[in-house]
């Protein structure tokens, strides 16, 4: 049983690694490249296997043999693609390696990561079924999807959670997380094993940290990577949500993956595989939650605009490759939404008149702003708050203006801000009790955006190495001035 469980949980790491390795260049030093490829691959592997599981159920039916065959086929194709088309381009990354006292920074990151892991395990042991949405939506639907007869379709039935009232029925939510957990449970032959959802929650939480560190290491060097990882691990709300088994941490992972891949695409001249991976990450975001569909639309549009503004060569090829990665996934999401998902399940009572009435009510805006303020405060514990960390870093390291004007930075900021504005719009028009809606979801929605926000700040700030280089000439100038003063006796 343990062997099957281990193999079931290990396969997305292998498949995802093969997919990512075949499309990413080899970054040097190797630790940064391996961390980026493994972390990105872990999330994309889960996404790919979730798509394969759902497609197999849809086309062949709930057969374990068919599911296993399609997975082996995917693993074979990924392995062959990795062997044949493996990107052998070597990319040297900036920043060198830590030396002297600066080794304390990676050591501190390791301490923080170890504590986060210990906390995750302790919380999961105390609460193995996760928090409310885990058992009310995601894992419940996974239990239904894992069935070996036609009742697997109950996961998107109108009857799902109908007895609990209109606000509890979510048969129309996308199926990445539930589908992947169902895939593991159906291979294990048991829907009661809490190890699976716990392991999936752990995979996404620590892959998010790995992706942040690996992505920043490749883009900005080891010091920015370490600091970015520490800011994320010092965010109490992220640590808290990690063990809840919700879809918000996975969605945050895919947002982060999209932004990192956009940065890598804009910084590379020839690496076409990055575009395909960015497209796949967009598709996975859309297959995770409804908010991910909004993000896929907004981020895709922002990236397109940044391509036009930057006058980068090969724009058409870039778009074709991005679409090649995103379209198969988005086609499945659209098929599910149009033909399978129960209509009006989550937002059923929302009508145009209700929306207009709510939009015209100024008190709702005040309540939303107050709730945002409260939830932003709760991201940290007292002064140990991500906004304080980032403010300190902005002051100490500095923010180069030319970097703020880079098209990819503007596009990424626009994607996150428009997505957040979309969330706020839905709060304004919601037909349900606004206080209930804010109280039960706003904190989680912020967690979706936090990793990307931290990444964006760290990508824009000057790195410690750049600050040191800038400080060195001015330091030498002041030394010369002091020497001249002492010579003249003034």
């Amino acid at each position, binding site marked *: 049983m343990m062997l099957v469980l281990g193999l079931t949980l290990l396969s997305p790491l292998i498949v995802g690694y093969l997919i990512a390795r075949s499309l990413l260049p080899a970054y040097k030093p190797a630790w940064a490249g391996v961390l980026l490829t493994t972390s990105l691959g872990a999330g994309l592997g889960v996404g790919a296997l979730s798509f394969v599981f759902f497609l197999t159920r849809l086309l062949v039916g709930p057969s374990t043999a068919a599911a296993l065959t399609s997975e082996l086929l995917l693993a074979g194709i990924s392995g062959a693609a990795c062997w044949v088309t493996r990107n052998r381009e070597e990319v040297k990354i900036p920043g060198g390696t830590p030396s002297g006292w600066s080794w*304390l*920074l990676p050591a*501190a990151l390791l*301490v*923080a990561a170890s*504590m*986060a892991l*210990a*906390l995750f395990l*302790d*919380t999961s042991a*105390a*609460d*193995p*079924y996760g928090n*409310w949405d885990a*058992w*009310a939506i995601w*894992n*419940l639907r996974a*239990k*239904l999807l*894992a*069935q070996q*007869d*036609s*009742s697997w379709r*109950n996961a998107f*039935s109108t*009857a*799902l*959670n*109908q*007895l*609990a*009232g209109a*606000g*509890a029925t979510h048969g129309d939510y996308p199926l990445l997380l539930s589908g992947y957990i169902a895939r593991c449970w159906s291979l294990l032959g048991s*829907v*009661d094993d809490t190890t699976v959802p716990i392991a999936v929650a752990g995979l996404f939480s620590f892959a998010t940290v790995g992706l942040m560190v690996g992505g920043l290491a490749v883009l900005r060097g080891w010091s920015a990577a370490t*600091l970015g990882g*520490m*800011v994320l*691990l*010092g*965010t*109490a709300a992220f*640590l*808290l949500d990690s063990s809840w088994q919700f879809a918000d941490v996975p969605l945050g992972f895919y947002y982060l993956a999209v932004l990192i891949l956009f940065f890598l695409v804009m910084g590379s001249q020839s690496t076409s595989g990055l575009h395909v991976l960015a497209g796949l990450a967009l598709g996975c975001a859309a297959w995770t939650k409804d908010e991910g569909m909004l993000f896929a639309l907004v981020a895709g549009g922002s990236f397109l605009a940044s391509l036009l503004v930057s006058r980068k060569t090969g724009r058409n090829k870039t778009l074709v490759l991005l679409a090649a990665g995103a379209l198969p996934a988005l086609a499945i999401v659209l098929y599910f939404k149009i033909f399978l998902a129960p209509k009006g399940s989550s937002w059923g009572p929302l009508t145009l008149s209700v929306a207009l009435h709510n939009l015209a009510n100024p008190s709702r805006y005040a309540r939303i702003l107050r709730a945002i303020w409260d939830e932003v405060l709760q991201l*940290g*514990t*007292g*002064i*140990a*708050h991500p906004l*304080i*960390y980032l403010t*300190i*870093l902005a002051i*100490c390291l500095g923010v180069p203006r030319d970097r703020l004007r880079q098209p990819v930075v503007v596009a990424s900021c626009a994607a996150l801000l428009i997505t957040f504005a979309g969330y706020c719009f839905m709060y304004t028009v919601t037909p349900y009790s606004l206080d209930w809606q804010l109280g039960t979801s706003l904190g989680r929605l912020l967690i979706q955006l936090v990793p990307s926000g931290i990444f964006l700040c760290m990508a824009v700030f000057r790195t410690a190495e750049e600050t040191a280089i800038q400080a060195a000439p001015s330091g030498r100038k002041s030394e010369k001035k002091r020497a001249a003063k002492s010579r003249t006796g003034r």
Partner: protein
Amino acid sequence: MALLSLYGTIEFYSEQLERNRTLKDPYRIAIQMERLEPIRRELPPNTPLGYVSDVAPDSAIILTTQFAVAPMLLVGKAPHEWVLGNFTKPQNYAEFGRAHGLTMFKEFRNGVVLYRQPHK
């Protein structure tokens, strides 16, 4: 900044460990799983189940019950032969069933009863 962040992790770590000690499984899912296990053994997994209770409908109770009996689906209007009785207090379950047009099929422990709709 690194020290402050590490302080944040340590601070939250100790707070959360304390919370984990005092607030284990706050929605009592494990207890519900154990209570409703006989129902899952009694009926095929794709059976739609009606629902009756001695307390007013509460989303927390209904959703934890739904998770515990899944893959069986608790249904309202959809046709169903079997009905789950979920009780908080001991009482005459057969009488309760008759008042709701149901025949008691089996009584399990901890206020769990399986009813059947006689005409179906």
